[in-house]
């Protein structure tokens, strides 16, 4: 068993990425994710990797595009405004069917916003962000351990399905310190990448990495094929944690830091005799539609707890086909709901029916 170390969430991402075989990092500093870049700057030279502080987020994501085409594991990280800048490059990477990891340690928005935590980039992460029809696999860690584990999972899923993956964290997850057990490099999966641009050795046809199609029918075909792949991912890769849902009359839905807070509220509500449980989406694309649809047949109502003006709540309504009411409990602009606020919202939701 690996020994435990005490790490910040941001550091855990960086160290886990290195252990996952990522030797190429391109980024630009922005609070509250700068520790990822700082850690990479210290470690990459020691392991013969590349750390490059690009002149902008746009450069950084295009460097990711280039390295990914050569079949190497590669990543970039930023916080909300920086991730907005990366969107063009992300669309190109998705359109070229390339794996890559993009980390977003979210902060309050819109605009320059603030440096305190937020979850208001949910739409951007799950509904495109850039132009065109595409998806990212989006993972939402809720502990420093998960920051590490999901970094590795994100690389694996990206390689497996040849598409970019995003780790959608927030400032608190990035800055908080917890004990972590890091994986040994032997446990890391290696994927064959016959599509990579590595030189033909005059033994095969050229591999071409491109998102431009001169023939619209061909472009349509690649879109159709990509969405067939997305369908497989939606069937196989939706992840969630179910907490006290067995006999629940009400269901809290929350991810990341909001789920940590909500868990305390659920426990407190149970003590007051309210039968409430929680479904914590771990992937927000693919969204765990099935457990929510099943819950919709059992519970009387849902509560979406978010650090946004209500973004995930739309996916909950779609997944449950609006069979039951879905209320919102939120704080924004860098504020975090307290367990007491969530408890009050649970009581209000329960009060309407009991």
């Amino acid at each position, binding site marked *: 068993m690996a020994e435990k*170390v005490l790490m910040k969430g941001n550091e855990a991402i960086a160290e886990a990425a290195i252990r996952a075989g990522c030797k190429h990092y391109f980024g630009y500093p922005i609070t509250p994710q700068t520790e990822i870049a700082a850690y990479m700057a210290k470690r990459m030279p020691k392991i013969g990797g590349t750390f490059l502080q690009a002149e902008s987020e746009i450069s950084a994501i295009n460097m990711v595009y280039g390295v990914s085409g050569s079949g190497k594991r590669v990543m970039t990280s930023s916080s909300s405004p920086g991730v907005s800048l990366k969107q063009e490059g992300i669309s190109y990477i998705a359109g070229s069917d390339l794996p890559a990891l993009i980390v977003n340690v979210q902060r309050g928005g819109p605009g320059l916003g603030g440096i305190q935590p937020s979850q208001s980039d949910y739409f951007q992460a799950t509904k495109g962000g850039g132009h065109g029809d595409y998806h990212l696999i989006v993972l939402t860690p809720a502990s420093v351990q998960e920051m590490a584990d999901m970094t590795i999972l994100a690389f694996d899923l990206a390689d497996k399905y040849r598409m970019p993956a995003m780790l959608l964290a927030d400032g608190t997850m990035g800055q908080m310190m917890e004990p972590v057990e890091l994986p040994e490099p032997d446990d890391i999966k290696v994927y064959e990448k016959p599509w990579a641009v590595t030189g033909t050795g005059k033994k095969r046809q050229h591999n071409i990495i491109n998102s431009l199609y001169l023939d619209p029918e061909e472009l349509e075909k690649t879109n159709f094929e990509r969405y067939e792949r997305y369908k497989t991912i939606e069937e196989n890769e939706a992840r969630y944690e179910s907490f006290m849902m067995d006999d629940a009359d009400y269901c809290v839905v929350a991810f990341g830091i909001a789920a940590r807070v909500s868990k305390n509220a659920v426990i407190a509500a149970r003590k007051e005799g309210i039968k409430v449980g929680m479904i914590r989406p771990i992937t927000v694309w693919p969204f765990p539609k099935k457990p929510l649809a099943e819950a919709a047949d059992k519970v009387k109502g849902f509560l979406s707890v978010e650090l946004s003006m209500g973004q995930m709540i739309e996916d909950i309504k779609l997944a449950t086909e609006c069979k039951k009411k879905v209320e919102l409990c939120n704080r924004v602009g860098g504020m975090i709901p307290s367990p007491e606020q969530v408890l009050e919202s649970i009581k209000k939701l329960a009060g309407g029916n009991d």
Partner: protein
Amino acid sequence: MKRVNLFLGHYGSGKTNVALNYAFDLKSQGLNVSIADLDIVNPYFRTKDSQKELEQAGIELVALPFAGTNVDLPSLPAETYGLVMRNDKHVILDIGGDDRGAYALGRFTPYILEENNYDMFFVVNFYRPLTRNAEEAMEVFYEIQQAAGIKFTGIINNSNLGEETTAEDVERTIPLAQNLSEMTSLPVVMTTVSEKIFEDVDCDNKFMLKLQKKYY
């Protein structure tokens, strides 16, 4: 007991927490204590988060008004000069992590050296990934010392795994702290232990961490 007490160390080594607890300890000995937040590195989890506890204890807090807000501005409170230069109070300076954080101390260094009534502590947590042993810690030690322009006078072993820390976890790091002590010829002035496991830890110079800020 020196008048000026400086807490420096690797990023995330627990400087703020140790400095806060040290402030409360000095106060409980009846001393007049001020604590200054000179962290220009960390945007979250600051000395200022304990403002209420400090006020209640009667400890003066010098921190930027926008610490913990959205103003991500690496600047220093002007009142720090007053703390360093007037010598009627015990002063605790909580400095940001690594050499980058230590540069902030530089502008106060001449006054501190002139008065020559200071201790500068190297706070180390051997469970932090980049200071797993004495050799790695020493690398950080010298980087910080050079940036600060003042020599360390002692080592504080603040090794912990957060809330999960057991007595064995702490005891396992005692030889590492001793190694660092031998390599730097400086004493281990304290080994910090949380209140919960304080009685279970067997070592010299134990220091109890009573205040433990809990976030999420």
